């Protein structure tokens, strides 16, 4: 045993040459795809007739020459690398915290240049419209006066922050960091499933996945002109800096809830990559509406805070008084313009699942443009007609609580038991305004290594959008994978994993 205790464990194998095309391996028939099922969902790698889509040709020919043992070894090397770096996720259940590796799959998901161009344009359009919307509802309320969206939806939202009314934000940018969830429907079209406008996470996994996928398939990677994503921390830094244009020497900090937070690795990662301070609430104090960190040499002023804690916990004087994570007085310093906070407070009102249904209308209203990326068809249970339709079709719909995220408070109709559906119907009738429903969309599938072969698993796509003085989207994304066969739930808190996303430059 002790001999093994110090063995080397990160072995990504030998040279990786792109093989000449041989006899094509067919999904569902030949190894390594013998158990690869093509279903109703759009498959990223194979066309319905089982031929390989052109962007996946190089990867396919590499996979056909790698033994399963070799793939398995590389998969383990990926996992070891994550473990050594401390890329772990803490799952809380029964008051116990366990440190787990984020499951990662070494096979990359490929996005073509044309697909990306559309995604980029669509997300840019969307983030601009959403920021105009936030400026509007915290300002004149034109959109409400014009009756584009019901007042009750805004003022009744638990994420609406009255304290933000009339408060100007730099460049009118409320949402500076956004991670939108896209899915690809049966027709192969990318549609927006969710806008995460509060404190989206996952960007560090995008970068960590790139690191291991590139090591697992170096030659395939080189041969494909994959666009780089390593500049993300730099772009994030520029975005944060653009919020405080007044000083030469802007002092920036990432505010984390602390080491017990499930995304702590990411907070530390971003601070390190940007070369800025990582702070906790207890490191900060506010005096005379100026925010300081406590350093060994005395107090040091902070100008911009990239906060990774929710609105509710930011300032116990204004929001939740029991919050030990935040900083008393922070909001007043913000109001006084002495510190910039990204994202601004109160952005959650715009990623509410009910407001989501109105985003296409908001794009038309503010930009006089047609949405480039569509929404998933959404039933607002607050509307009587929609509610009865939802109740009658619970077995085919996905029902979500409007204020929740992370896959909580959700019913996946086709996968739920009769009892679960009846239980949920009760909740729906009791509080219809709190729910929306969407058809069960067959998220597209992508090749995923499962130990004894390569199988199709459902995936989504989370690109990360930066919006300060300008809008920047690094050409890459976190592809989340539902690792359980047939499952449509990709959330890492519920057994999902992730994989690298290769955006091609041509």
């Amino acid at each position, binding site marked *: *045993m*002790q001999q093994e*205790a*110090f063995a080397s464990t990160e072995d990504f194998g030998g040279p990786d040459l792109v093989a000449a095309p041989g006899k094509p391996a067919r999904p569902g028939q030949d190894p390594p795809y013998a158990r690869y099922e093509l279903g109703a969902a759009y498959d990223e790698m194979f066309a319905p007739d089982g031929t390989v889509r052109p962007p996946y040709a190089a990867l396919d020919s590499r996979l056909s020459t790698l033994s399963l043992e070799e793939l398995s070894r590389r998969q383990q090397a990926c996992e070891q690398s994550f*473990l*050594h*770096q*401390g890329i772990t996720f803490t799952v809380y259940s029964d008051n116990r915290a366990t440190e787990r590796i984020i499951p990662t799959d070494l096979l990359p998901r490929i996005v073509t240049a044309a697909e990306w161009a559309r995604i980029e344009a669509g997300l840019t359009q969307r983030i601009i419209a959403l920021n105009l919307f936030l400026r509007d509802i915290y300002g004149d309320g034109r959109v409400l006066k014009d009756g584009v969206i019901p007042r009750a939806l805004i003022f009744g939202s638990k994420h609406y922050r009255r304290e933000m009314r009339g408060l100007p934000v730099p460049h009118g940018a409320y949402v500076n960091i956004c991670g939108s969830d896209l899915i690809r429907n049966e027709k192969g079209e990318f549609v927006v499933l969710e806008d995460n406008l509060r404190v989206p996470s996952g960007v560090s996994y995008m970068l960590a996945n790139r690191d291991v996928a590139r090591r697992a398939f170096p030659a395939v990677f080189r041969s494909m002109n994959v666009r780089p994503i390593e500049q993300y921390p730099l772009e994030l830094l520029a975005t944060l800096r653009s919020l405080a244009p007044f000083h030469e020497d802007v002092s920036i900090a990432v505010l984390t809830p*602390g*080491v017990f937070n499930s995304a*702590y690795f990411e907070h*530390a*990662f971003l*601070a*390190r990559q940007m070369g800025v*301070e*990582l*702070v*906790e609430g*207890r*490191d900060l*104090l506010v*005096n005379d509406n100026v925010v*300081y*960190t*406590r*350093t*060994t*040499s*005395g*107090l040091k002023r902070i100008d911009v805070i990239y906060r990774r804690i929710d609105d509710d916990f930011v300032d116990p004087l204004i929001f939740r008084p029991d919050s030990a994570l935040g900083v008393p007085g922070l909001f007043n310093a913000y109001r006084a313009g002495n510190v910039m906070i990204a994202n601004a407070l109160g952005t959650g009102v715009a990623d509410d699942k009910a407001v989501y249904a109105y985003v296409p209308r908001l794009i038309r209203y503010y930009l006089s443009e047609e949405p480039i990326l569509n929404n998933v068809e959404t039933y607002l249970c607050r509307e009587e007609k929609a509610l009865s339709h939802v109740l009658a079709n619970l077995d085919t719909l996905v029902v979500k609580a409007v204020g929740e995220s992370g896959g909580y408070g959700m019913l996946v109709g086709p996968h739920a038991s009769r009892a679960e559906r009846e239980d949920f119907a009760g909740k729906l009738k009791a509080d219809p305004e709190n729910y929306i429903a969407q058809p069960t969309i067959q998220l597209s599938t992508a090749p995923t290594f499962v130990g004894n072969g390569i199988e199709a698993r459902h995936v989504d796509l989370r690109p990360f959008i930066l919006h300060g003085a300008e809008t920047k989207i690094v050409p890459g994304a976190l592809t989340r994978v539902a690792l359980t066969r047939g499952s449509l739930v990709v959330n890492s808190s519920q057994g999902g994993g992730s994989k690298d996303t290769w955006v091609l430059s041509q």
Partner: protein
Amino acid sequence: MLSRVADSLYWMARYIERAEHTARVLAVKLESMVEQTPDDSAASWARVVEALTGEKTLIGHQDAFVITRRLAFDRDHEASLVTSLAMARDNARQVREALSNEVWEHLNRLYLRLSPVTMDSIWVHTPARLFREALEEMHALEGVTYSTLSHGEGWYFLELGRHIERVQLIGRLLDVHFRAAADPVHAPKYFDWLVLLKFCTAWEPYTKRYTASIRPQKIAEFLLFDAEFPHSICFSVDRMTEALDRVAPGAPPARRAAVERLAGRLKAAVDFGQIDDLMTGGGIAAFLADITKQCEQIHKTLYSSYITYGAETVL
């Protein structure tokens, strides 16, 4: 540097030093026990337990297996090797942005590799080997830290933690051995003095300085006052003094003065100490008690000056 970060770096280094010391003492003890009579070995184990945990055990009360398991792998024991490593890692995790990737990964890997090891799996072969290997990894970690981390304020907080801990660890080993020397029944024998040197990686450096003639007085002189040997108290006090001079460069002068005064006093005690004055009537015990007390004062003043100071005092 954030006060909280300084705090974590300081403790991370203290725990690493403690883990390294525990691994070394266990390796040396397990390697040397085969050459001792059961009685001598039991007396020696009792001294090891007291030096590492402060607990006075009855000689012969516990066997080597039980003691090693407790000192190495007992997670409920605050001084065990795995506890020290876990604490070092927890502290490091909280200041990842202040460490190089290499330092974090080295420490994390070491912890992950040692963490599942059990006594049963090592006892059947050569139990000392695991501790030797862990020790090598910790030496490597020291080198990785030295060569990949900027030698700025953070590095000096690590230095401070390492050496303030080392002074106390070496001090406790010396203390238990010299107190036992006054006991006619269990007085350390020639072999025990040699093992004491090995506990402190001092055997070869000692022989180079004093030849292979093992004499308790020379051992005390070497481990207390040698200015060049990295595991002597004098050496560590020098490093502490230098580190104290380099941390918190922008702190108010009054605060810095409080720390520097204490550091200067400790350095004087070690620089001008004479072994001849200590060799009678519990002189070493009194000297070590004084050094320990001074270290505690330095620790307290370090915290009150740079880490836990009231914000109202600087506004």
